[in-house]
């Protein structure tokens, strides 16, 4: 664009100033947002016992060491450490493993179950269809915290307390996941189904062999959201799990947050190490995450 007239020149200048300020604003906001995490990361390389009394130091001159992380990983070289450090490290990685197992189970089962429910709701015309879809929305409009206590008693009665099933079963038919799959499938052509039927494919065969491959992107989006939710979930697992050995990472970390601050070196290093799985998934599958998250906001 050639800047011929004075008006065009001032417009171009204004645009440049605007660009500078808008970009600077976002740089500033990003810096502020990164600040607590940077503090936490720096804090994890400082003396953990002091963190509780003095706060996380920003002083770049204060001594930096890998000691917190060495203690966190002590169980992999137990000879170099005292017993209680090794025991702490063992329970940390036990929680980590519990969280991984629970998250993977939850993601796989939730996705499969929700996929088939959404398939049933969107690929057929049947009597209860409208009502059932209304109920999907209705379950979304009751906060979980209201159901929490009766559900806790129920799980207790069935005997699922202290089990992974007790944690993931109540949330298996996640309304938002069903909703997303349904939105996604409604936009796909139904002619495929009829073609497959003509070829002699059964109803269930179609749902697995024809439809599932086409809905792969939806699976990716929901897998990330579900994994994040499950990895970071805390309130409900806190009620279901009673034994320290069954704890997930989040509950375990919470137990380290004692008023005495005797475990803070493990807590701060363990917290930072606990973000890694989700951060890695996020950085790899960023695109799918945004699609999955925002579908509800745009379509209403």
């Amino acid at each position: 664009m050639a800047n011929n007239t004075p008006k065009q020149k001032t417009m171009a200048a204004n645009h440049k100033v605007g660009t500078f300020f808008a970009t600077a604003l976002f740089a500033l906001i990003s810096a502020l947002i990164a600040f607590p995490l940077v503090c936490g990361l720096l804090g994890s390389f400082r003396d953990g016992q002091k963190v509780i009394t003095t706060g996380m130091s920003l002083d770049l001159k204060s001594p930096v060491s890998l000691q917190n992380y060495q203690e966190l990983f002590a169980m992999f070289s137990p000879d170099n450490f005292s017993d209680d450090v090794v025991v702490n490290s063992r329970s940390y990685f036990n929680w980590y493993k519990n969280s991984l197992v629970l998250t993977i189970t939850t993601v796989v089962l939730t996705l499969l179950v929700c996929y088939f429910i959404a398939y049933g709701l969107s690929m057929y015309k049947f009597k209860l269809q409208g009502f059932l879809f209304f109920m999907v929305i209705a379950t979304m409009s009751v906060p979980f915290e209201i159901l929490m206590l009766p559900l806790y008693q129920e799980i207790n009665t069935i005997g699922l307390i202290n089990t992974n099933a007790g944690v993931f079963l109540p949330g298996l038919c996640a309304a938002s996941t069903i909703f997303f799959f349904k939105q996604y499938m409604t936009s796909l052509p139904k002619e495929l189904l009829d073609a497959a039927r003509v070829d002699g494919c059964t109803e269930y065969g179609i749902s697995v062999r024809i439809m599932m491959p086409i809905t792969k992107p939806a699976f990716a989006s929901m897998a990330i959201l579900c994994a994040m939710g499950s990895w970071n979930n805390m309130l409900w697992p806190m009620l279901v799990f009673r034994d320290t050995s069954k704890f997930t990472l989040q509950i375990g970390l919470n137990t380290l947050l004692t008023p005495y601050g005797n475990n803070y070196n493990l807590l701060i290093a363990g917290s930072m190490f606990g973000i890694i799985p989700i951060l890695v998934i996020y950085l790899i599958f960023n695109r799918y995450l945004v699609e999955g998250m925002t579908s509800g906001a745009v379509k209403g």
Partner: protein
Amino acid sequence: MKAKKILYSQKIAPYVFVLPFVLSLLIFWLYPLVSGIVMSFQEVSFGVTSWIGTANYQKLFRDSFFTTAVWNSVEYMALTLLLMVPIPMVLAVLMESRLTKARGVWKVIMYIPALTSVVISGLLFRLMFSEGENGQMNVIMHMLGQPSQAWLRARFTGWCALLLLCVWRWTGVNVLYYVSGLKSIDTSLYESGDIDGANAWQKFRYITLPLLKPTTVYVITISVFAGLSMFLESFMIWAGNNSPKNIGLTIVGYLYKRGIERNEMGYACAVGVVLMVIALVINFIQLVATGTFHIGKKKED
């Protein structure tokens, strides 16, 4: 053979597909919902239940802790609405304008706090607002020539920490909601706005704002629910369910305290029922105010 044929027919198949949902709805939604309401009229302790009519509710409305909890939750919800709707909207408009460079980078960074669990983010904010001399907030106070503060002991400063935690974690998410809302707006509308000589403010006011309404309704709905049922943020910031003078006590915190810590299930269920009524009333007001009943109908078909 015949049974198999029926099971595989197009008439029966949809019912087979939705069966898990029906079961889950009955077992893990309807049953706890009803039994929660029933228990709120009972005294439940160690397996022995007895009907006590509305005694739980009568006690509840005289309970000053409960009043504190309700006001804290409602106030938190109102303040988060004020912070988490307009600010993300303006940021999203700015981000999607041609002015901002490197927006992909900012989006990624702004979303990262939402990946952290409430335990980890709560811990970070607890340490930042620590009373110690080296807590970041106190370091900033020292730079401004002010003495150290016991941030989490006073209501105003404690709530600043609580609200900042919410803003920190969810601004990026709400910006993303608005960005995708903006992307769904037809650009030709802005072009016709240009032809009619509309300035930037008029284009925002008469094109962007009305067309962002579905996004705004969505963001308000999730903020209302999240705000009303906030508990763990306060639980982490004050390292447990007890805060000085109950400045961090919320409805769900009180429900947890009574139901889990003191094992008074009946009383705690009454707290839950009141929370549900508040949520439904606010939801209803919001639906009427925004005229979204037609969206609800659209979803049904």
